[in-house]
């Protein structure tokens, strides 16, 4: 029995190693994942090495905003960028950078920031102000919330540090103007310890952080978790059609049904089109279900442009089907197709930002990501669902998807063999 087991094992090892494509995929694929996922996730797991960049527009006429920004910059994993191309950032420039996708976050400190913080709290005309936190709506809430929390904490601490000495001075001036300076300073130190936050807030904080989207993005309310996750996972899901399509084509070849169909009075392109159409339709149904269920069950907003949604979906499905043709043309065995599919789909999805937002990746990886159809499809969906854009505004991304689809089809059909 053992000999039989050994014989079977040896035979299958020989069969496996004869399939060089499968061997390469089996051994290369894990390394690809290690590389890609490690780089892609480095922004989350190695925050110290890869800072979260925040644009800062300092309109403050005093020094308090600069203090907050300095402290923010010293807090890992944040890095503050107040200068862009050797010039101090303006609000307009910061918004433009976010719209273009170069950065995701910006802080706008108002001109009266220091004045508000340094006012004496006991006076009747107590003023408040707002720090504008401009966020690309596609930015994950998991990232934004901690930043906003950190910022609020820093603001309170700064306001506190600014207000306590002023308040103590105010009280001494009123109640004990003859008190020596050393006593005042000593009292300030004790007051800071005894009144944590007491002077800064009250019912209404002096400084609040107001989150906003850049102008032009029709975002009525902040995107929910579904608007942020559904597009990514929808795109990830539709590309799995590649595996189904490629394996189906391979079986048609192996089982001789293609050969039988070739004898029928039917052109090869007709045959190929008939083969691809069902998978294209499955993709469309997949998208409709994913978006439909998210909309109905989770009340996810589908944006303002049904036409845009339809065209982006058609283009994304065409790209997925096109990639299926390409893999079907290249894969000679089911093992090859399986390996190639997993390698391609997980790599492209990761690089395209389906799992991890692209802005958390290193710049070079973000650029590489643009070479994937996933990135363009994801951006197009997020433009429609999250940023509130319309068909015309996502047209360039639709064109990019169409170009991917065309390239996949042309190369796939060129390399395709019916037998």
């Amino acid at each position, binding site marked *: 029995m053992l000999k039989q087991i050994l014989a079977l094992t040896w035979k299958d090892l020989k069969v496996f190693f004869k399939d060089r494509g499968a061997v390469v995929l089996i051994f290369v694929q894990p390394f690809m994942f290690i590389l890609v996922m490690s780089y892609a996730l480095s922004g989350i797991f190695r925050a110290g090495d890869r800072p979260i960049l925040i644009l800062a527009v300092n309109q403050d006429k005093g020094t308090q905003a600069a203090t907050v920004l300095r402290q923010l910059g010293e807090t890992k994993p944040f890095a503050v960028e107040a200068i862009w191309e050797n010039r101090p950032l303006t609000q307009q420039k910061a918004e433009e950078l976010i719209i273009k996708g170069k950065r995701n976050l910006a802080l706008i400190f108002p001109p009266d920031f220091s004045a508000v913080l340094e006012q004496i709290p006991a006076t009747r005309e107590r003023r408040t102000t707002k720090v504008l936190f401009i966020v690309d709506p596609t930015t994950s809430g998991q990232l934004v919330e901690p930043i906003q929390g950190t910022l609020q904490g820093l603001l309170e601490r700064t306001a506190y540090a600014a207000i306590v000495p002023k308040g103590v001075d105010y009280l001494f001036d009123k109640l004990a103007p003859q008190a020596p300076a050393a006593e005042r300073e000593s009292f300030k130190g004790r007051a800071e310890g005894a009144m944590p936050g007491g002077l800064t807030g009250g019912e209404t904080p002096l400084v609040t952080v107001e989150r906003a989207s850049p102008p032009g993005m029709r975002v009525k309310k902040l995107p929910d978790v579904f608007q942020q996750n559904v597009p990514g996972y929808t795109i990830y899901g539709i590309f799995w059609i590649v595996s189904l399509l490629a394996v189906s084509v391979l079986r048609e070849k*192996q*089982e*001789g*049904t293609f*050969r*039988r*169909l*070739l*004898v*029928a*009075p*039917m052109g090869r392109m007709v045959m190929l089109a008939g083969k691809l159409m069902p998978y294209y339709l499955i993709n469309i149904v997949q998208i409709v279900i994913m978006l439909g269920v998210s909309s109905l069950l989770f009340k996810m907003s589908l944006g303002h442009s049904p036409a845009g949604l339809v065209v982006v979906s058609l283009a994304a499905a065409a790209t997925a089907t096109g990639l299926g043709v390409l893999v079907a043309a290249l894969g000679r065995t089911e093992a090859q197709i399986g390996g190639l599919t997993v390698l391609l789909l997980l790599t492209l999805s990761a690089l395209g930002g389906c799992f991890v937002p692209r802005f958390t990746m290193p710049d070079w990886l973000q650029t590489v990501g643009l070479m994937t159809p996933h990135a363009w499809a994801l951006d197009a969906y997020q433009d429609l669902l999250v940023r509130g854009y319309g068909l015309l505004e996502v047209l360039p991304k639709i064109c990019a998807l169409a170009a991917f689809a065309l390239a996949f089809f042309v190369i796939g059909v060129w390399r395709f063999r019916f*037998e």
Partner: protein
Amino acid sequence: MSLPLVVINGLVKKYGQRVAVQDVSFSIEEGEIFGLLGPNGAGKTTTLSILSTLLIPDQGNVTIGDYDLVRDAKQVKRLIGSVPQELALYPTLSAWDNLVFFGRIYGLQGAELKERVTAVLALVGLSDRAADAVQTFSGGMKRRLNIAAGLIHRPRILFLDEPTVGVDPQSRNFIFEHVERLNEKGLTIVYTTHYMEEAERLCDRVAIMDEGRVLALDTTKGLIDVLGGGVIYLGLPQASLESFLSAVHALAHVSIVTPEDCRLKIETKNARLALLELIELCNAHNVSILSLEMLEPNLESVFLHLTGKRLRD
């Protein structure tokens, strides 16, 4: 027999440097069962692939019906039915669904399609299994359904490529009966096989192929008659070969004697009677027989006679 349905002239097909079919010419009459017999790699499937429009010949021309195979491929495709060697079916679909699909590919629809599917299922004896998935069928049933799929559009000529490969004897007989019944209804059949028994039983005429060439083409009887009553290979000591040649030739049931290496190739009028005469001759001359091989007159012997190889080599 009427006018030739298929006329093949000087067919050549190469794969790179390898010549798969070399200067093949023959015609097939309407209503006959025409056999292509030869070992694996003889060029049968390539020839059939050309006739099925799957391959374009490098040289030569073929007409089927009134149509040129290359120029009028679309019309030719409507005349031919193809039953490939593989079980070219969708295993997860039912027999009915498979046939409906192939029928639709040929443009059948509605009542006509339903009628054709019903008819071909009955023809191959699978009416009661119409709704079952093909993957639940036995090998023989799958083969029969494979044939049915080739008949769905009422072809004038059916190409059967080794239809009994991997089939048990009972199913094989079933397939033979179907082929004969189809032929009785007037269907022209081209049947490739490397089993000489099948060619002998089914085919009106047989082309024997080897290494891309047609070595002989005739009715089964005509081919076998080439061997007369059979062939005997007689191994004798080297010293006796020359001296024995004329004595063997003089025997009553021997036609031709040819020395071949250390033996004599003896073509006979009746192999069994010739064998008795040979043994008596050897005994009379006190010559010991080193080896003896007798080939009964059949297509296997014809192939061996023509090529020096066995069909299953």
